[in-house]
């Protein structure tokens, strides 16, 4: 590449009639991305691993009770929230391919959470849940005369709301993906099944699911990878609180960073790699086919 990049103007004109010129331009055109990759991916990743090289960082990390709690929260987030989200997306993809005028209108509204930036809507939910002034507790007070619970001050509830927030935000995207998958199934298959008297469950079991299984699993894995990096749903709703008990790995690293404990921040990420790398490997194999 360096040889091609330092070609003299004379040499370039000499190359004009040779096929090498196409390779030369090919190389020139991948250089911008390669530079970005070297300077802003390879170097940071290498530097980060170097910062996390001391075994002492890992000892300190394991001794931090917040770390274990975060790992647990992350696993709950990945297993519970994502599976619920994907099952709902699967059901809704079947709903949205029905031809009704009102379903068409609803599908436009339905993608709002995905189209809107996450900060305003997450903060809106955060304020709905405010124990004193939030609309939910105001309604509870008006209806029952009792004060509602302090929703975000209760760790399992707060984490559950973070997961709901995540589902709210990303459900439209995955539903759209699965709708695309459903629309790719030839309608003759369903017509033939109807003639044979198949129930809708049988149609799903023997036509829809076999054609969508691969897409569904790919979506599930990709969603897991992205969710590992979902900082906003937790940080903006609960801030990791109460008492740092709702952190996930995505917010924990940033917390250490803000406490100026970069080695711990990087160590917490390195510890997550055994979880991330198999998923990444799976996706790379799927997509680079």
């Amino acid at each position, binding site marked *: 590449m360096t040889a091609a990049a330092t070609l003299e103007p004379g040499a370039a004109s000499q190359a004009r009639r040779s096929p090498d010129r196409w390779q030369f331009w090919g190389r020139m055109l991948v250089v911008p991305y390669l530079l970005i990759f070297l300077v802003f991916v390879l170097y940071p990743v290498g530097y980060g691993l170097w910062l996390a090289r001391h075994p002492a960082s890992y000892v300190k990390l394991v001794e931090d009770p917040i770390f274990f709690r975060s790992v647990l929260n992350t696993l709950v987030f990945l297993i519970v929230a994502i599976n619920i989200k994907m099952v709902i997306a699967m059901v809704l993809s079947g709903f949205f391919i029905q031809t009704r005028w009102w379903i068409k209108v609803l599908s436009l509204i339905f*993608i709002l959470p995905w*189209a809107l930036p996450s900060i*305003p809507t997450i903060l809106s939910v955060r304020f709905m849940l405010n124990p004193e002034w939030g609309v939910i507790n105001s309604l509870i007070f008006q209806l029952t005369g009792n004060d509602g619970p302090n929703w975000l001050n209760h760790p399992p509830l707060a984490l559950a709301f973070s997961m709901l927030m995540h589902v709210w935000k990303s459900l439209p995207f995955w539903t759209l*993906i699965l709708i695309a998958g459903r629309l790719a199934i030839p309608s003759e298959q369903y017509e033939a099944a109807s003639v044979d008297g198949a129930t809708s469950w049988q149609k799903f079991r023997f036509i829809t699911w076999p054609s969508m299984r691969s897409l569904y699993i790919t979506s599930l894995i990709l969603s897991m990878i992205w969710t590992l990096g979902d900082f906003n749903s937790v940080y903006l709703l609960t801030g990791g609180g109460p008492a740092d008990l709702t952190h996930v790995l995505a917010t924990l690293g940033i917390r250490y960073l803000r406490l100026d404990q970069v080695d711990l921040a990087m160590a917490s990420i390195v510890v997550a790699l055994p979880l991330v790398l198999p998923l990444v490997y799976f996706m*790379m194999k799927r997509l680079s086919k």
Partner: protein
Amino acid sequence: MKAKTWKAVTTEAKLLLIGIPVFLWTIIPVYHLFLFAISSKDSATSGRLWPKEPTLQNFATVFHQRHFYLDHFWLQLWNSLLIAVAVGALTLFVATSAAFAISRLKVRGGRTVMNLALFTYFIPAAFLAVPMYKTMGNYGLLNNQWALILAMVTIASPYCIWVLKQASDKLPYELDEAARMDGASPLQLFRLVYLPLMVPSLVAVGTYSLLLAWNEYLYAFLLLSNDRSVTLAVALGNFLAADDSPWELLMATGLIYALPPAAIYYAFKRYMVGGLTAGAVKS
């Protein structure tokens, strides 16, 4: 006949049974945001479905920057716009060149470049943020808007390259050969044949990267800290600093901040949904 109408009615009822909860679930947080933005401070928390006296006062306060949280509203809005446009343009440049080189010029090692890009795409964004922050410090770019622009280009371009490569692989190769026969140079092929054919995908990835940058919170608040250089996203997050924040102003600002990306999304929905869902997950 009667059984048939009965069946049709139950089908509609079942659909409504899904449709109504989906509508409420989707709209409540958005409507709450809107309701707050048009309510005065005291009436906002009353729990009414429509305020007794809807007001645009909050927007006036925001536009006139009459609150210390909003001292730099216009500047921050401008920062968001500038950074989003810069990220969109740079990502388009980087991703289109790379996709053209890999897919059409069949550059040697193109597959490796594609895999590097895919690998980057699969690093969870919050994980890369930590080393990215330290790296930007080493480069002396912290608090410089270029740090955010370059970080967002780094995050946006892998996916764009991938989507563009998928789309360019579908163009007939005979086009390139015909152009070569006529003596076109690689750049002429790029400009006169490739770019015009790729317009829908270019719109999709350009919009994608623009919105990604406009919506970004984590990288923006890590890499920028000066009140005059942060984006509106960071300014919104700053409202969380105090318990007695003026929430009605936050909601009004949030609504202003949310409208442009939503408008762009809906305007380009045709391209976004087609270009991006097809590219996001290859079945």
